[in-house]
């Protein structure tokens, strides 16, 4: 065996453990999911699994509650992703300035992102309930009380507000790291050319954060497509299906009704939507680029 071949063999040996675990925990279950989505597998009767073709998918798209859940999930993604990204960027730019108490401000804002989602949802549920603090303050200021989670038009937006509030805090850290990676010399050069704050933001900061944007948009879109905790705890999908989402419906079908076939079909639909969105975003935002600065 030549030394090159030997080296290659060692290489494969080194990645073997990762490949095996990837196969067992990712590839095999994915293939199984594809298979189950074409069957009538009912969890309590694993002895009788029948092939049913595409009828699960046909049922998914004929059922109003499921198409409604997909629609709600899209609405959630379309509103929450841009808003939380923008808010995170504003946080990061603000916290990148020099001012007294900067570390304290960073800690306070970031700490929001480390609270478990279940706790956040429960606290917000209390805050926005009809006898909660927010309505209490609205009343003090002379506004009528708002039905937040009990109104079909406000419930989803209330959940979006909560998710944006928490998710932006985490993304702020990533933006902040990105901001600190932008070479100071670029700003100095821009200043020499007489650029003001806004021009520096548009021509230096945002292009410099391109890779970060790409990363944040893709991860937060996939995360947002899987929205579950907020609606599960705060509204259980109500009122009248206004906050029903893909994952909530999946929980109902798979966990409560034990319909593995239909559940697998729904999760595949989710997978395909996530994949398409990721591809579009990559095309839209562009390939990763290296910012090379010659010094």
């Amino acid at each position, binding site marked *: 065996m030549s030394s090159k071949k030997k080296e290659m063999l060692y290489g494969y040996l080194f990645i073997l453990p990762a490949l095996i675990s990837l196969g067992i925990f990712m590839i095999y279950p994915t293939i199984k999911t594809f298979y189950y989505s074409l069957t*009538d597998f*009912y*969890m*309590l*009767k*694993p*002895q009788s699994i029948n092939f*049913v073709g595409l009828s699960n998918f046909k*049922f998914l798209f004929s*059922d*109003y*509650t499921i198409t409604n859940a997909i629609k709600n999930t899209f609405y959630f993604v379309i509103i929450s992703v841009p808003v939380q990204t923008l808010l995170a960027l504003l946080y990061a730019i603000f916290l990148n300035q020099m001012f007294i108490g900067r570390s304290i401000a960073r800690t306070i804002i970031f700490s929001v992102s480390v609270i478990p989602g279940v706790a956040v949802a429960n606290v917000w549920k209390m805050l926005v*309930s*009809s*006898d909660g603090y927010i309505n209490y303050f609205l009343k003090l200021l002379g506004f009528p009380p708002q*039905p937040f*989670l*009990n109104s079909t038009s406000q419930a989803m937006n209330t959940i979006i507000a909560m998710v944006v509030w928490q998710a932006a805090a985490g993304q702020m850290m990533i933006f902040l790291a990105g901001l600190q990676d932008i070479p100071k010399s670029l700003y100095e050069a821009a200043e020499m050319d007489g650029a003001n704050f806004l021009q520096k933001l548009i021509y230096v900061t945002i292009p410099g954060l391109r890779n970060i944007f790409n990363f944040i948009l893709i991860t937060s879109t996939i995360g947002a497509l899987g929205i579950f905790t907020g609606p599960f705890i705060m509204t*259980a*999908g*109500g*009122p*009248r*299906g206004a906050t029903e989402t893909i994952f909530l419906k999946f929980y*109902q079908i798979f*966990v*409560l*009704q*034990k*319909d593995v*076939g*239909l559940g697998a079909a729904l999760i595949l639909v989710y997978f395909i939507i996530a994949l398409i969105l990721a591809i579009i975003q990559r095309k839209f935002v562009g390939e990763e680029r290296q910012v090379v600065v010659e010094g």
Partner: protein
Amino acid sequence: MFKKIFLFVSILLITSLILGEAQQEVKLVFWQHGTGLEETEFYRKRIEDFNKAYKGKINVEFVVIERAGGMGYEEKVNIAAASGELPDIMALDGPYTAVYAEAGILRPLGDLIDKTHLQDIVPSIIKQGTWNGKLYALGSMESSVAIYYNKKMFREVGIKNIPTSVDKAWTWDEFYNVCKKLKQKYPLAIVGLSGGLDEWLTYMATPFVWSNGGDIISPDGYKAEGYLNSPQTVEALTKVQQLFKEGLTAWDTGGLSFEKGQVPMMLSGPWGAIILKNFPEIEWGIIPYPKFKVHASPTGSWQWGITTKCKNPKEATEVIKWMTNADTVKGLCKVTGMLPTRKSVYLAFPEFSKLPLYILKDQLLKSGHPRPSTPAYLNLTVEFQKAYADIMQGADPKATLDAAAKRVDTYIQRQFKK
């Protein structure tokens, strides 16, 4: 030579005797879902007593499986059923009888349990444990839901003719008028008709449907169309919806509660009385469910059945009999405050013979109606809960129930080919 053979045979005999003796003690595994600490300890103690009483014959291993915030126990049963690792005896919630029986997880008790053991048991428990004409499970405590009312608030508004038994229960219209009267003085007339999407909604609200002569599934458990959306079902839920529309109750009660003396009525079970012990300033009583045509009230509780995996069903039946005998029922209801499932045991609970708790017992014996026995229960209950929640939050009852019935039937078609 003869001596040797004799020695050999006698050794063989002695070994087989020893082995035989050891084999005679049947080992059984018993699964219990995790509940309150005292309740679980009570089950453990009863199993210990059983093992003492049957020493040398039957030995039961008691295993507690936590519910882990909801479905943990049911998940464990699913996985065990799929992998062939079911216990011999297991606890299950009332409406799961048909689900597990149809899936081949439970075996019928009928041929093993003698009639004398069943004579004293309340009919709702037998009905709950029966599917397709066969008895699969038995339980030791029952429940009921009734209306708790604030006596002082009723006096202030001048409400008379307060029913003192199921036979004197208010009709729906009488109940509705009482609600209207109470609403004039208090922010809400009643609480307890709403909640998260969980079993409470099915458990509490289905009696309104039955009371009006409707149902939510066909008697054989395989058809929702014509039952879940029958005119009687639609009418009953439309009348309940009226309470929400007119602000007599609310989906989000905004923290208003019966216990704090803000709302004059609440729907609750036997546990309501236990909670109210912490609020001695509230002077309360209990009245039965209002009735449409016939009286109906909720029942149901956990029970025990024998799995198809059990190799010693005769011995397992002894355990079930022990866990549902008068001593167990008495001890369990003392610990939990729930209703005994044996009529004879009520002698030990004088509180159920006089008002207010008498109403719960009267309902259980006269109008107790368990949730439907259907293999499709897991789907049916979720669809009913969603439909109920949607209707009470303003959706059109007929259209909502039509859609729900269609979904349940699609599911039945998929899973049971009916």
